[in-house]
């Protein structure tokens, strides 16, 4: 992860002063933040650029609001990543409630059970691999999901994840270990028992 935090002076106060610095931060980091947003949200929902723009704006509004309290104790990127996680998870919670209230179907986040998966021996379609992973991740708790995304997909180290989530490094490893176990269980539940599957290289959806 880029360590650009020190490059930007953040002895900022609120509002008027922070607007200029916000622009500098936006110039430097908006591309990376938009990637994080897409990574944390997954292939459904923010696949279109409009939703991603919305979330990106939301992230930088929080940045603007909290800029005065940033004291360069953490790297700016870590701080921004933490805010991105906070914003995306918050939006996900809202969407979940909205789905519950309106009983809205969510085809983009749920693979149909009947769909057969391609054999592992075949080359995964990269987009499909993404949908597969996120379909299971979306069944987990926000904490497990976030930990797995940061570690397995973003490939951040334990220290960075600890700084982003505001927890200790040992807790990161413990949490990751449990999150992995739950992911495996959910994956097996959704796509069948791999031990009994035909051939080691083929995934069969559970009936």
């Amino acid at each position, binding site marked *: 992860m880029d360590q650009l935090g020190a490059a930007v002076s953040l002895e900022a106060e609120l509002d008027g002063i922070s607007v200029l610095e916000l622009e500098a931060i936006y110039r430097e980091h908006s591309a990376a933040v*938009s*990637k994080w947003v*897409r990574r944390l949200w997954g292939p459904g929902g923010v696949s279109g650029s409009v939703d991603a723009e919305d979330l990106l704006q939301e992230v930088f509004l929080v940045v*603007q609001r909290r800029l005065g309290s940033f004291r360069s104790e953490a790297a700016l990127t870590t701080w921004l990543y933490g805010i991105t996680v906070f914003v995306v998870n918050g939006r996900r919670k809202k969407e979940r409630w909205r789905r519950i209230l309106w009983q809205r179907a969510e085809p983009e986040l749920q693979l149909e059970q009947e769909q057969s998966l391609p054999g592992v021996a075949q080359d995964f379609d990269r987009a499909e691999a993404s949908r597969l992973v996120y379909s299971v991740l979306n069944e987990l708790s926000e904490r497990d999901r976030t930990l797995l995304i940061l570690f397995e997909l973003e490939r951040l180290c334990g220290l960075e994840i600890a700084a982003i989530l505001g927890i200790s490094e040992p807790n990161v490893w413990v949490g990751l270990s449990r999150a992995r176990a739950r*992911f495996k269980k959910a994956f097996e539940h959704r796509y069948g028992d791999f031990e009994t599957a035909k051939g080691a290289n083929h995934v069969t959806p559970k009936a």
Partner: protein
Amino acid sequence: MVEPLSPWAEGPDDNTPLERQLSRLFGAVPEPGALPDFARQRVALGLRTRAAHRARFMLLRLVLIGVVIGTAGAATAQWATSRLFGSQPEIVAHQTRTVALGPVLVPQPPLPQAAPAIEVPAPDSAAPDSAVPGPPANTAAAKVPAPLPSSRLGLEAASLEAALSVLRAGGSEHALRALNAIDRHLQDFPRGSLELEARVARVDALLLLGHRQEARRELSALPIEHVGRKNELRLIRAELRADDDCRSALGDFQVLVDQPLPAAWAERALFGRGACLLKLGDKAGADRDFARYLSQFPSGRFAQQIRAQAP
């Protein structure tokens, strides 16, 4: 403690099919691309607009907070003042009004005895010209809330109010008790905030007791201009001086006659000036005043005496 892990994408943790599957699966997940430049520029534009709106909103919010704080501060200051000083301002104001309303509560002084060539009522019989009969005793005192004992001003007001309530009871017996109470008050609160009011009350008590000379000395020492009852006190002083010093009394009568007064006071001032002029040898001036008196107050309390003295 759990040992640090390696991402699945870098290889399976063990050789189980699931681990191998997950390793391939995670390794195949593509890295998402950043938003294109034009999309990020749109977001930047939106942020600037939101910042401008936010600045305006902040200004409005600051103004509102200022108004709320100002209002709360004023209320708190008022509350703190009332806690620190009790309700004395109200009590004092009430008592000051009570003292200032003396004419209602205190009998009027007698007419000067020395009105030349005209028989004037004896000093002791002067009470009949009281404008209004005295109120029932202690009613005002009963309505005044008790002052906080911690406040000197409150104590002073309570002390004076106690003396005034006795004075309002009327009669020489009460007047003597009132005089003693007022003297004690003046000793207890020398140069107090209500000293002037206490000294005016002392004059009233002395007049009720018939101590005209002492009342005259007390009045002469009073800065009448700074007392709420200045016209009434000036009239009383003039009438007391007219006993033996018509020259100085004439000045007070002159001031009073030249300004609008309640009828009862105007009548007394006009008659007093005529009497003093007569005593000083200005018969023409006296006749003019008496004639004016008869035209203005044909059935006044001195009309019969004036007509009787007329040639």
